[in-house]
C-alpha cells in the first residue's frame, strides 16, 4: 500500500514538473526575444543595478517595438568560472535568443561561449571580457584606463608627491590587477609619489577595515590611498577611526573605484576626494539594446564598445546621488572639474 502511494506521489510530481517545463516552453514562443543576462556572481550588489537596467530596457523595448523582450537573470552565487560555464550550458540547453555575460575568467569561458554561438545564440560580453571567444562585441571600460584615471584624480588632489597605499581585494583578480597596473603607470611620471604598501582584504569587509587601520598604524604619515574596490567603505562610520581622522583632516586624500551610494556619502562628508566608476546600469541597459539591435537590425559592432567611465568628485557628486535616488542613469553626468 505504502509503496503504491509513494510511487503515485512520485509520478504525479514528475508529470507536474514536465508539464511546467513544457508550458514554459510553449509560452516562450512567437515574437518573444529572451535574453540571458549573466553576471559574474549573484552576491555582488553592483550587478543588481545592471540587472535593473536590463529589465528597464526590456520593458522599453516591449513597449516601443513589436517584440516582447524577456530577461533571464541567472548566474553562480559566488564568482566561479567553472560554475558560470555550467550556467551558460544550462542557458544554451534552455534555448535563449541572446546572451550577455560578464566573464569570471577570460579563458575559461571561451569554450561555452563558442558552443552557444555554434548553437545560433549570439553572445556579447560586458564588464569582463573573453577576447578570444566568438562573442560579437565587448561592452566595458578598460580597467587599466580606470586605474590611470584614479591616479590622475589623486595627483590632482594630493599633489605631485607623497606616500600612497593601495587596498585590493583578491590578489590576482584580473580586473583589480589591471586597475593597479594603470594606477602605477599613472603615478610613474611623478617621482615624488611612492607606493609604500599594497594590502589585500580578500573581498571581505571586516578584513578590509582591519588592514586599512593596520596600515594607518604602520604608516601614520600617509598622504594618499587608492581603494581598488569599495570593500571597507561598506562598513559604518566609526569602524576605521584612524583612517577617518586622517581623511577628514584633509592631510590624506583617498580615491576609490566604484560609485555606490555609500561612497557618495563618504564623499559628501569630505572623506573621499575622487571616485572612478563603471556604468553599472549600462551593463544591463546598453547590453540588452545591443543584443536587440544585433538580432533584429543586424547591427554591426566593433570588437570593443567603450561604455565610458563615471568620474565623480565633489563638483558632480550631487548629480550622481540624484541618479541613484531616481534610479535614472540615462542623463549624462556634469564634468568632474568644471573649470577645465
Amino acid at each position: 500500500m505504502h509503496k503504491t502511494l509513494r510511487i503515485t506521489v512520485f509520478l504525479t510530481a514528475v508529470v507536474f514538473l514536465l508539464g511546467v517545463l513544457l508550458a514554459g516552453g510553449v509560452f516562450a514562443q512567437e515574437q518573444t526575444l529572451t535574453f540571458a543576462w549573466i553576471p559574474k556572481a549573484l552576491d555582488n550588489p553592483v550587478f543588481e543595478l545592471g540587472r535593473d537596467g536590463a529589465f528597464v530596457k526590456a520593458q522599453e523595448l516591449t513597449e516601443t517595438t513589436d517584440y516582447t523582450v524577456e530577461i533571464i537573470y541567472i548566474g553562480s552565487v559566488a564568482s566561479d568560472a567553472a560554475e558560470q560555464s555550467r550556467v551558460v550550458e544550462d542557458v544554451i540547453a534552455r534555448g535563449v535568443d541572446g546572451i550577455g555575460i560578464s566573464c569570471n575568467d577570460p579563458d575559461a569561458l571561451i569554450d561555452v561561449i563558442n558552443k552557444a554561438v555554434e548553437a545560433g545564440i549570439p553572445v556579447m560580453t560586458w564588464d569582463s571580457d573573453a577576447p578570444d571567444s566568438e562573442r560579437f562585441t565587448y561592452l566595458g571600460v578598460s580597467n587599466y584606463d580606470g586605474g590611470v584615471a584614479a591616479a590622475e584624480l589623486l595627483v590632482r588632489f594630493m599633489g605631485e608627491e607623497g606616500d600612497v597605499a593601495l587596498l585590493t581585494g583578491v590578489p590576482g583578480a584580473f580586473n583589480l590587477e589591471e586597475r593597479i597596473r594603470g594606477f602605477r603607470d599613472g603615478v610613474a611620471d611623478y617621482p615624488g609619489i611612492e607606493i609604500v604598501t599594497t594590502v589585500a582584504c580578500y573581498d571581505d569587509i571586516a578584513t578590509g577595515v582591519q588592514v586599512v587601520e593596520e596600515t594607518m598604524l604602520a604608516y601614520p604619515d600617509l598622504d594618499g590611498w587608492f581603494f581598488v574596490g569599495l570593500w571597507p567603505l561598506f562598513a559604518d562610520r566609526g569602524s576605521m577611526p584612524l583612517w577617518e581622522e586622517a581623511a577628514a583632516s584633509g592631510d590624506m586624500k583617498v580615491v576609490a573605484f566604484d560609485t555606490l551610494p555609500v561612497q557618495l556619502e563618504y564623499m559628501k562628508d569630505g572623506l573621499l576626494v575622487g571616485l572612478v566608476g563603471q556604468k553599472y546600469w549600462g551593463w544591463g541597459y546598453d547590453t540588452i539594446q545591443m543584443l536587440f539591435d544585433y538580432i533584429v537590425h543586424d547591427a554591426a559592432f566593433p570588437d570593443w564598445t567603450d561604455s565610458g567611465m563615471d568620474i565623480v568628485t565633489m563638483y558632480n557628486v550631487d548629480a550622481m546621488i540624484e541618479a541613484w535616488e531616481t534610479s535614472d542613469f540615462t542623463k549624462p553626468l556634469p564634468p568632474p572639474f568644471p573649470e577645465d
Partner: protein
Amino acid sequence: MEPDKPFSPEEDPARFQKEGALTRFARNQLATLALILLAMVVVLSLSTRTFLTATNIFNVLRAFSWIAIASFGQSIVIISGGIDLSAGSNMAFSGIITAMLLVEGVNVPLSIGAGLGITLLIGFANGLMISKTKLPPFIATLGMMSIVRGFCYGMTQGWPVRGLPRSFIALGQTDLSFFIWRVPVPAIIMVCFAVLVYILLDKTKLGYHTYAVGGNEYAASLAGIFTGKVKNIAFTLSGFLAGVGGILMTARLGVAAPTAASGYELDIIAAAVIGGISLTGGEGNVWGALIGAAIMQILRNALVLLGFPAYWQPAAIGAVIIGAVMIDMYRKKSI
C-alpha cells in the same frame, strides 16, 4: 609463571605520582602555545614601532574576538568528535537577521535575541541531523553552510544591510576603561565566553561527557552516556556562539553583508587546531582556541605592519598553521 606476589604502590615507588617539572611543562599544551605567542609578541615589538601600542593591541583584540568566540563553539564540537562547517554562514546570518530587524525598528535586545535564537536553532538542526539521522558532521554542516548562506543572499537580495542604530553599533565600537587602558567591548565579551565555556567543559558533568564522546563514542555509550544528546548540545552551542561572533562583527562594522564571514569557518577551525584541539576529538580546551585565534590574528597584523607583500600572505599563514600543529604533535610524541 611468576610467584604469587601481591603488588602495591611500594613495589615500584618511583612510578607513583612522580613526574619531573620539565615533563609536566612539556605535557602542558597551553604552555607551549603561550610560548609561541610570546615569541611572536617579542619579535614584533622589537621589529616594529607600532605593534606594542595600545591602539594596535586593542585593534587586534577587537578583530579576533568574533573569530575566537565562534571558535569556542567550534572547540566544543571538535572535542565531542564533530566538526561544524556552518560556523561562517551562521556568523553572517545572525548579523543579517539582527540588522534587518533593527532596520525595521525593532529594539536592540529583541533583534539580538532573534539573531542568536535563529543560529541556536540552526545549530540544533545540525545536531539533530548528526545524532538522529547519523549523517557525518562534515556532510551535515557542509550542507547547512550552503543553506544558511543561501538564506543570507536570498533575504538581502545580495545587498548589505546598513543604517543600524548607534545603540547597537556601540556594542562593537565602544571601549570600556580598565585602569589606564580602554578595552573594546567585544574583547571583554570574548573573555566572558571563554570563562563560561571553560567552566562548561572542565567543571560540569556535560563537559566530562563531551570529552568522553569525542574520545571514544562507543565507550561513552557503554558507560551509559547519552551520546546523541551530548552531540546535540555541542552543535547547538556552536551555532549560538557563532551567532554571538556574527553580531559583534556586525556591530563593529555597522553593516551586515550577505558575503560576510565567507570562509571564516576555516579560520575558526584553524584557530581551534592551532590551539591543540585535536580533530580526532576528546582533547584540548578553550584557552587553546583563544591562543590559537590570537596567533592567527597577530600573524595577519604582523604581515601588514611589516609591509609583507599581500600576495605572499596566504602562504605565510598556511605555513604557521602547519608549523604550529607539527610542534604540537612533536610535543605529544616526545613524552
